């Protein structure tokens, strides 16, 4: 017995002598001084590696003294490599190692812009959000960088199911539920510190939403102290960018200040006729007291840009480019775009973080926002359609072969035909002398002059919001965390339009040309009976004017219980939403139903979600989540025609969402892998659209209710360290998103609210959800050099993206008298798949240190092989010729992915 003990002791002595106590320790943090959990720390050319723990600490034991290369890697960060020299038995403390996040220049606000999609009859823009980035998750990072531009949406969910918060305050537009990243476009440096959660993952600061949530931490004390100047050259929507940020960091007197400004501009972007002029400014002031941090963040991003539109394949083929833009034309030797989007909505956030005690934190943010938001467009009265790609101007419309050929030849090359002919618009206004009697409703008041047949109008939806969010985070015991909060928001959109350019005429008369044609009485044609025959000059408001008022309050709570091998969490919320319309004009077609306050619509909603994380070992995790939520319909999908009347959709319901997902995660030093399966159901969604219906020969409001969809699929992600310098990543998303119901449609005449069809079935059960590739994959290699540069390339694949379909074509009326199964039948009914494809990107990033200056140069090229045939989106026209029943009379319109793009970025820090 004694001998064994001696042996053990002796061996221990040997061990302790032979294998020395030479160690390296340190702590890995990110830019906000939060620990980076699960970062891999390794000694190059050896097997020695470990991972940082929940506090970011690591400890490496070395065999002997010497000089080594230490490499720290973590997803979403630039690899950190350093030389270390350790003496025998020394415990070398490297202190805090601060990791730099990878920012490959992706600009979420730009993602919105490059995919301009204006709904058919200009009721509103559909903007996609930038995707979540800044995530430690391999899948999300790849999805954001590589697949975002190809319109990949995680799990096929609509943008409105993403929540984005700044300091705990949700930032979406309440009238349509969507997040517009352009609200802080160009302020990359101050919106960089964020955490993203995919799907139903637990978020400290909010219940979140089905697609996930992102918290942006905007605290001047956390921003890197010093100056940061960035200059970029690119060829997408803007061509140059200049950003400037200065941060004091936390000063000795516990104040911190940050200012940032930027300008992104181009005379013309990748798509012809698109200009870009975006500024941004930010001021942040923070004062840290003993237990409070008080922050004031003020920012704004005024932007003006020319838009691009989709067109039919015939036009793309005629002009020989997939980047044709119908919105512009030459005027006096310069390109003039008829559709200019502009916005400037400054936001003021006042935040107080109260560290009540070491385990309790209360974050309260008051937000105020208010500003201008709109887009211009042409409008016309008794004059030919000014759009150059109008179907009657195309060779396919001609029935004389010779003429069709001449038209095709000239359309292909002559911009006075294939773009807007501004001269002709001015000429028309010059031919239009008219005398208006009883102008502005004043008897005997006669106005003479050139009456505008064409004008440029600005369609505005200015926003105002006041909101208060308060979040409590408390750690009860080491393993029990509870969070909860309260949110109250009052949001108003002021919708109206203003006349911007009379195009050489003297005045415009505010009447509805369709009503004039359809009804005898001059009264019904008036847009505002309070001022009949309203004479409109430049700068006047006309057409429609109403406010959308939305009030919402929400309380939520969640608890996280950490056990040795299992984390359990549950969360729930209760919310109350109330919205109504307030009209300022008495519409001639709806004199009793347009002026004043509409009925108030109230919705009571709730949601619950659960998550279980099983930690099998330190490396293997299994995760399961489930959620059930109800959400109020949005204002835009509840009012049938808010520009003219107070009518709401019959039987408005909250939508119901049920989701469940489960995944397996592996985190080994050289390999990260995860696979997730998900299934989500959306029920009782509503959608409102307006368009000209050929069958009824009238402008109609098309209301779809009972829209149910199911989204299921599998996500795979892998990141492997092939060698110390080489990393391979691969992600894949294989989804199946489809309609599971036959929605019901009610069609009313926009001019008179006469009901043309009530609760008619639309046969789209089984149709795939359009607008996003259901199959997407990306794989790449990255090489990290010890000389402070890294480079790599990705290959991306998207497929199974479907054209946004016209529901009216899937009704018995559309296929009346046609035999099922015939070619014509199939052409009308079948859903069309968009062209997918493969693209490749490459990038190179180098950091250069020169005295006290640290510079980063990054060069990236997207779509190296210039694949111009990928259709990122498109839509079937809502107009369908019921006489010939030929779907090719009004063919679909497509958007194409840009060809070769580059982004060169130089940022200097000092």
């Amino acid at each position, binding site marked *: 017995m004694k001998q064994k003990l001696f042996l053990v002791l002796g061996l221990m002595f040997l061990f302790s002598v032979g294998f020395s106590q030479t160690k390296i320790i340190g702590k890995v943090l990110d830019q906000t001084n939060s620990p980076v959990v699960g970062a891999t720390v390794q000694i190059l050319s050896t097997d020695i590696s470990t991972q940082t723990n929940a506090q970011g600490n690591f400890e490496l034991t070395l065999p002997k003294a010497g000089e080594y290369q230490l490499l720290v890697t973590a997803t979403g960060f630039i690899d950190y490599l350093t030389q270390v020299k350790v003496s025998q038995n020394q415990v070398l403390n490297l202190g805090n190692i601060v990791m730099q996040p990878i920012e490959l220049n992706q600009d979420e606000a730009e993602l919105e812009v490059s995919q301009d999609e204006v709904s058919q009859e200009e009721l509103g823009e559909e903007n996609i959000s930038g995707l979540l980035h800044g995530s430690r998750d391999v899948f999300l990072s790849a999805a954001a960088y590589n697949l975002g531009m190809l319109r990949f949406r995680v799990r096929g969910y609509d943008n409105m199911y993403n929540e984005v918060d700044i300091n705990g305050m949700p930032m979406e537009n309440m009238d349509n539920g969507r997040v517009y990243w352009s609200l802080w476009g160009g302020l990359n440096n101050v919106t960089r510190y964020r955490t993203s959660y995919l799907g139903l993952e637990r978020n400290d600061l909010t219940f979140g939403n089905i697609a996930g949530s992102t918290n942006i931490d905007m605290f001047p004390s956390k921003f890197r102290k010093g100056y940061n100047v960035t200059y970029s050259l690119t060829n997408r929507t803007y061509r140059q960018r*200049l950003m400037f940020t200065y941060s004091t960091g936390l000063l000795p007197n516990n104040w911190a200040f940050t200012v940032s*400004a930027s300008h992104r501009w181009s005379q013309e972007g990748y798509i012809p006729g698109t200009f870009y002029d975006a500024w941004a400014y930010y001021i942040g002031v923070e004062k840290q007291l003993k237990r409070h941090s008080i922050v004031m963040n003020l920012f704004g991003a005024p932007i003006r840009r020319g838009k691009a539109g989709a067109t039919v394949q015939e036009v793309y083929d005629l002009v020989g480019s997939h980047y044709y833009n119908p919105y512009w034309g030459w005027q*006096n030797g310069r390109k003039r775009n008829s559709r200019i989007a502009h916005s400037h909505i400054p936001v003021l956030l006042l935040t107080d973080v109260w560290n009540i005690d070491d385990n309790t934190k209360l974050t309260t943010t008051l937000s105020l926002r208010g500003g201008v938001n709109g887009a211009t467009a042409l409008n016309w009265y008794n004059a030919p359609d000014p759009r150059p790609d109008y179907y009657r101007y195309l060779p396919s419309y001609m029935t004389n072969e010779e003429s069709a050929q001449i038209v095709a030849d000239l359309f292909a090359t002559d911009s006075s035909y294939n773009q807007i002919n501004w001269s002709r618009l001015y000429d028309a206004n010059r031919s239009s002398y008219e005398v208006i009697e009883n102008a502005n409703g004043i008897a005997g008041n006669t106005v003479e002059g050139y009456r505008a047949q064409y004008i440029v109008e600005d369609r505005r939806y200015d926003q105002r919001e006041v909101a208060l969010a308060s979040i409590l985070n408390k750690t009860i015991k080491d393993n029990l965390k509870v969070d909860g909060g309260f949110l109250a928001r009052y949001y108003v959109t002021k919708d109206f339009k203003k006349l911007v350019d009379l195009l050489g005429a003297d005045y415009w008369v505010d009447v509805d040309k369709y009503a004039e044609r359809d009804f005898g009485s001059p009264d019904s044609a008036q847009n505002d009976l309070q001022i009949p025959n309203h004479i409109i000059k430049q700068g006047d408001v006309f057409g429609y004017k109403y406010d959308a008022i939305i009030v919402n309050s929400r309380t939520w709570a969640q608890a996280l219980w950490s056990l040795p091998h299992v984390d359990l969490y549950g969360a729930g919320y209760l919310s109350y939403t109330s919205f109504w319309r307030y009209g300022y004009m008495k519409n001639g077609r709806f004199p009793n139903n347009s002026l004043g306050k509409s009925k108030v619509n109230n919705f009571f909603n709730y949601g619950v979600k659960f998550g279980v994380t099983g930690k099998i070992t330190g490396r293997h995790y299994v995760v399961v989540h489930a959620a059930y939520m109800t959400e109020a319909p949005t204002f835009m999908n509840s009012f049938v025609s808010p520009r003219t009347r107070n009518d709401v959709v019959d039987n408005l319901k909250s939508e119901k969402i049920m989701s469940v997902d489960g995944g397996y995660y592996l985190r080994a030093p050289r390999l990260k892998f995860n696979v997730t399966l998900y299934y989500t159901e959306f029920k009782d969604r509503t959608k409102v659209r307006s368009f000209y219906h050929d069958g009824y020969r009238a402008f109609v409001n098309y209301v779809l209710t009972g829209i149910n969809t199911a989204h299921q699929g599998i996500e795979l992600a892998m990141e492997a360290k092939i060698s110390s310098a080489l990393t391979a990543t691969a992600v894949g998303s294989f989804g199946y998103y489809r309609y599971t119901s036959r929605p019901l449609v009610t069609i009313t005449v926009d001019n008179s609210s006469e009901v043309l069809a009530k609760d008619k079935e639309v046969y789209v059960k089984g149709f795939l959800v359009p607008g996003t590739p259901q199959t997407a994959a990306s794989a790449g290699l990255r090489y990290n050099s010890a000389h402070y540069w890294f480079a790599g390339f990705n290959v991306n694949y998207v497929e199974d993206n479907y054209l946004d379909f016209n529901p009216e074509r899937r009704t018995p009326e559309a296929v009346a008298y046609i035999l099922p199964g015939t070619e014509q039948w199939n052409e009308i009914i079948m859903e069309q798949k968009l062209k997918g494809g493969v693209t490749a990107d490459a990038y190179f990033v180098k950091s250069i240190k020169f005295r006290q200056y640290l510079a980063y140069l990054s060069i990236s090229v997207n779509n190296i092989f210039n694949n111009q045939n990928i259709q990122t989106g498109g839509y079937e026209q809502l107009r369908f010729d019921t006489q010939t029943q030929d779907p090719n009379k009004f063919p679909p319109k497509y958007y194409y992915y840009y060809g070769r793009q580059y982004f060169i970025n130089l940022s200097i820090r000092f």
Partner: protein
Amino acid sequence: MKTIIKSLSILFLVVIGLSLNSCVKQHFDVPPSNCDTLDTIKPNITIKQLKQMLPLSVDTLKIEDNLVICGNVISTDRYGNFYKELVIQDSTAGISILLDQTYLYTMYPQGQRIVVRLKGLYLGRSHGVIKLGSTYDDNGVTRFGRIQGQEVIDQHIIKTCQNQDVEPILITMDQINDDLLYRYVKLNPVEFVDDELGTTWANPYADPPQPVNHHLVDTNGNEIIVRTSGYASFAAEQIPEGSGEFVGILGKYNTDYQLYVNTPKELDMTHDRFQLPLNIMKDFSDGSLTSGGWQNIALEGSVNWTYQSQSGNPPGCAVAKNYVGGSHVQADVWFISPALDLTQAQNPVFNFDNAHGYSGDWLRVYYCTNWDGTQGNLLSANWTLVQFNSDSSNTFWVWKNSGDIALPKEQTVYIAFRYTGSTTDGMTWEIDNIHIFDKK
């Protein structure tokens, strides 16, 4: 504080730096009018000569030579009465150009002087009228129709930089002939006929909207059709009730001349209505006995004057006979004109065609100036018997005109045709084409 100043001044410098060389210009100037300032293309034939190129036997002709016409635009589609059609005229004639484009007034307003390169275009005859256009394919059949495609139109129609107000030429209805087709004309004084007063220019509320033909009449009683489309913006307005100046474009449909108005704003029909010269013709061609205010009064018996479609001169006349059901019956029936105001006429007369058969009482024809219009006072009024020519051979049914019979220039004059028959006998009388007019 120092840091704040330092950072703000750097920010200021940077903003200045950002603004330089990064301006995106946005202000746009009004472009000049789109016309051929150099007048490079000159006409080499007149519109009259152009129309003469199409022989009567041919319906469509392609113009192969480098011919050019020049003219001023006289029509406008701004008010919806013209559709995809541009009418131009020069000093010799006018012609309609068929163009597949709407709202042509925005590009070729009234008065615009244009030059038309004819090579490649077609002359076509459309319902008897020569127009300029092109051809199109209608399910394999080539038809004459509109020129398609603005690109193609721009190759043929060139706007000159001259825009002048075109004055309509004053014409009278007798002067209307094919030479005046598609010219801008003015008639004065004219008015719409009495029975059309109170109606609208066209019928816009039908589905689809319907065109309407109205009739203008001059002081001599000559009439011409005015046709208006149901899509005209003024279609629901009432036609002018007064007399005066009518301005429009002369067209034709097969054999009927018709006028097309650009807009009622070009008319000036606000004067008092004029009296039409006396010219009433009762020829029974409408199948009605009493239309026009005529009446049938049976004083005795049940025999009436009736409309008969088989007889007449031509067929369609009024007949009276008392042979009913195999025997003669007692009859005394009067066919009376509407009240006639003959005070404005210089030499009012009437005549009529008549035919007869069988034996019995002769037809008696009267006029009267003091009947009050009631059946009760019919016999007590002073009816003046008149002589009229009739067939004297013993052949039945020979039509003969009565000869002109003078009438008094009184305010309320009635003409009556009185048929009588007894139980023993009675003739059959047929009358047609009762023409009451001012014989000059």
